[in-house]
């Protein structure tokens, strides 16, 4: 396969303009490699498809009762058709706004959707994923408060905690176990890793009493359709993972980190932000704005080193939210909630003790009467990924609208034998 349009004649004509006789001579200034290049022979498109398909078939696609930061929601057909349009797919960061009004408007709509869902004032145009969005929020808090302590409430996704720890180590922040005058932010996840829906009121008051910022992290973004918004509760920053909004699970990425803040933090936001302005004639249009925060202008004084974001996935989420609308999104959230509660009720009758003490959304933790290892293996036999084994016979189970009542019955009958 070859994506080079040049004929031999073109190449020799161009070489003569450049003043070289061969392609090798053209790159002779580059220090040649000292060892052989051990790569396979090139594959034709047909062979490539068959090679890659055979690798893909070594993965087992299953019915998922598993969340933990990635949720198996239904993806409407329209999304793929629109997102695959080359005008979106093959464009880049809209540095020339006049040639990028489409992507810019999409990002403006995305920012608006995130604000509407979270109850916050301002959103950026996306970050890499939920975990790095949380880490960026911690860095933002430290820059705003000039403090270095990060307090983390129980129930944070352990992967996010690990990423946060990595960022803290690298940037000289520390995760502490008290809230005091050194605390830059208080981080709490709700629904948390175990599905618990928490009322953050008291923690927010405590954070603010100590002049720290409160960061609300969210697990499954569809929960925003039915839960009181973090903005209403008084959170200063909201972060999370937008994968639930039409993005394939794809073994964990690429996903969609989002971050939204209260107005007073606007100029501290990392990443791209889109705004509306006008041309000389007064026509409205979209541009990247507040760029003075960014690395390509500010260099070592930038708010963050972020350059690329997840625009195509922000587009995906925007179309998803537009398509489902108010009633569709509510339906997804309610169905996910109800399926999880039906499964939990049925499991309870079979001796699986519910560990959650709070109300839960679509994810819950049970203590199994028998080895979770065996349960997971048995379910796998029925092509079901039955949850996340947290050790000590604890199983974290998740449902979405895709888990049918028949699948729930199959789950129950499998774990009952």
């Amino acid at each position: 396969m070859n994506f080079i349009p040049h004929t031999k004649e073109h190449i020799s004509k161009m070489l003569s303009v450049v003043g070289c006789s061969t392609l090798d001579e053209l790159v002779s200034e580059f220090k040649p490699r000292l060892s052989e290049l051990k790569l396979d022979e090139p594959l034709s498109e047909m062979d490539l498809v068959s090679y890659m398909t055979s690798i893909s078939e070594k993965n087992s696609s299953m019915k998922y009762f598993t969340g933990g930061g990635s949720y198996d929601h239904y993806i409407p057909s329209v999304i793929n058709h629109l997102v695959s349009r080359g005008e979106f797919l093959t464009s880049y960061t809209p540095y020339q706004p006049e040639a990028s009004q489409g992507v810019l408007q999409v990002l403006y709509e995305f920012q608006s959707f995130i604000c509407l869902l979270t109850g916050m004032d301002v959103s950026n145009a996306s970050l890499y994923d939920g975990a790095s969005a949380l880490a960026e929020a911690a860095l933002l808090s430290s820059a705003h408060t000039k403090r270095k302590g990060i307090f983390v409430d129980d129930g944070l996704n352990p992967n996010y905690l690990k990423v946060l720890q990595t960022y803290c180590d690298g940037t000289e922040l520390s995760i502490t176990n008290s809230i005091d005058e050194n605390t830059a932010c208080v981080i709490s996840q709700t629904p948390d890793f175990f599905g618990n829906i928490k009322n953050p009121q008291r923690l927010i008051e405590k954070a603010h009493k100590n002049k720290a910022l409160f960061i609300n992290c969210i697990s499954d973004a569809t929960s925003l359709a039915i839960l009181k918004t973090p903005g209403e509760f008084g959170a200063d920053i909201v972060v999370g993972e937008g994968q639930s909004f039409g993005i394939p699970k794809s073994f964990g990425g690429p996903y969609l980190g989002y971050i939204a803040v209260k107005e007073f933090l606007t100029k501290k936001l990392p990443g791209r932000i889109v705004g509306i302005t006008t041309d000389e004639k007064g026509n409205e249009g979209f541009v990247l704005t507040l760029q003075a925060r960014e690395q390509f202008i500010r260099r070592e004084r930038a708010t963050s080193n972020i350059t690329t974001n997840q625009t195509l996935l922000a587009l995906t989420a925007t179309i998803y939210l537009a398509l489902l609308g108010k009633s569709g999104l509510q339906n997804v959230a309610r169905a996910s909630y109800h399926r999880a509660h039906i499964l939990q009720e049925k499991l309870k009758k079979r001796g699986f003790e519910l560990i959650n003490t709070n109300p839960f959304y679509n994810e819950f933790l049970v203590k199994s009467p028998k080895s979770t290892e065996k349960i997971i293996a048995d379910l796998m036999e029925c092509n079901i990924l039955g949850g996340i084994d947290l050790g000590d016979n604890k199983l974290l189970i998740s449902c979405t609208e895709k888990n049918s009542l028949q699948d729930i019955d199959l789950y129950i009958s499998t774990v009952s034998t």
Partner: protein
Amino acid sequence: MKLIFNYNQANTKYTSQEKDVDLPDDLKRKSLPLCNVNEVQIIRHYTELSRKNYGIDTNFYPLGSCTMKYNPRVNEDIAKLPGFANIHPHTPASHAQGALEVIWELEEILKEITGMDAFSLQPAAGSQSELLGVMIAKKYFAEKNEERTKIIIPDSAHGTNPATAAMCKFQTVTIPTDKRGNMDIDEFKKAIGRDVAVVMITNPNTLGLYEENLSEIKNIAKENGALMYCDGANMNALLGISKPADQGFDMIHLNLHKTFSTPHGGGGPGGGSLGVKSFLEDYLPVPRIKKENGKFTFDSKNKKSVGKLHSFYGNFGIIVRALTYIKSWGVDIQKISQIAVLNANYLFCLLKEDFDVPYDRRCAHEFVISAKKFGEKSTINIAKRITDYGFHAPTIYFPLIVKEALMIEPTETESKETLDEYAKVLKTIIKELKEEPELVKNAPHTTPGRLDEVKAARQLNLRWMPKEP
């Protein structure tokens, strides 16, 4: 301008049949201010928006430093195979052997291309790869009990390099560029010392020039115990020709979305990666992927690791596309770079009589010219005027060290014909600048016209607001 929020409420197939949830009032949402829009309207709305956008598919898009090459469609098909797109990241390794194999194989291939000993594909983009590299350097020296507070970066570098150094609380020492476009070796010698942790070099640099003093820089850096880091954003010049590890680099990051053709998607998702020499391997993020007796496993045991960088294992979908692309080239991969360099030099030769040339050397995969002889702001005017001719502008005003800079990277997938047309358009615009300057100064002659960015930053309008009920 009609936003998705401005459509009238319509009938939709996504209705709410589920009964309300049973939650206490203090936890429940009272209203959800989204509207219901019909699928047909949505298709038209976003199709219309796509038509207001330039992409590689619609226009030549020679953004310097971004490697806007053709994105093969077969890569998209492969990434969407159910065995890749549907796999849940919590699937045990035993049932995700194909996914682990993809990551493992791309790591192996990137080792071969760069000469490095180990790779991590966990970083989500180039800037996160840099962050990982600097974190590794920080931890490495901390464990050796060496206090090193500085990172040396040439003034031609991408802004991410100093921004990353600052994030990790290093002091940036900026080295000027010499007359040939290299990092000034004398200034470098003055700056280097035992307090320097990393020498961060982009090669070829952002002027599109191969760094000529690399071997001397490497020797001096090593004498002082500093690590050599390569920003590999410009690897599209070197594939199969040169291995950065041979030049003494200890670490390199590659941008999968640039060099390996994954779509830029309007600004992302990108794909990062970091390659290191064996003495730094233990610092790479966990989990690593291991191959033992033909089986792939996750390995999270390493205690020296800097930790974890991504919610899961990196931008897997991008990794699949990059692997597919490289397999299509295989051992012929150097053809990519040869033609990328040919295209850049050809276009450079067509244009260098018309513009100022800050460094008159053979270029690598991109080149920088200056419009300063046409007066201040002529670069932005030219860039806007290019749009009227149906091409995308180059990167402009970067690198910062060249006044009125135009940074042009044609990539290997553009034909001679396209390059000839682009040169012709630029020559026409220069003629217009002399004969009808207003035509260029008021460009683009599209709707909207040139947008007021100062106003955008002063009168912030960053979201749609629902009308108060």
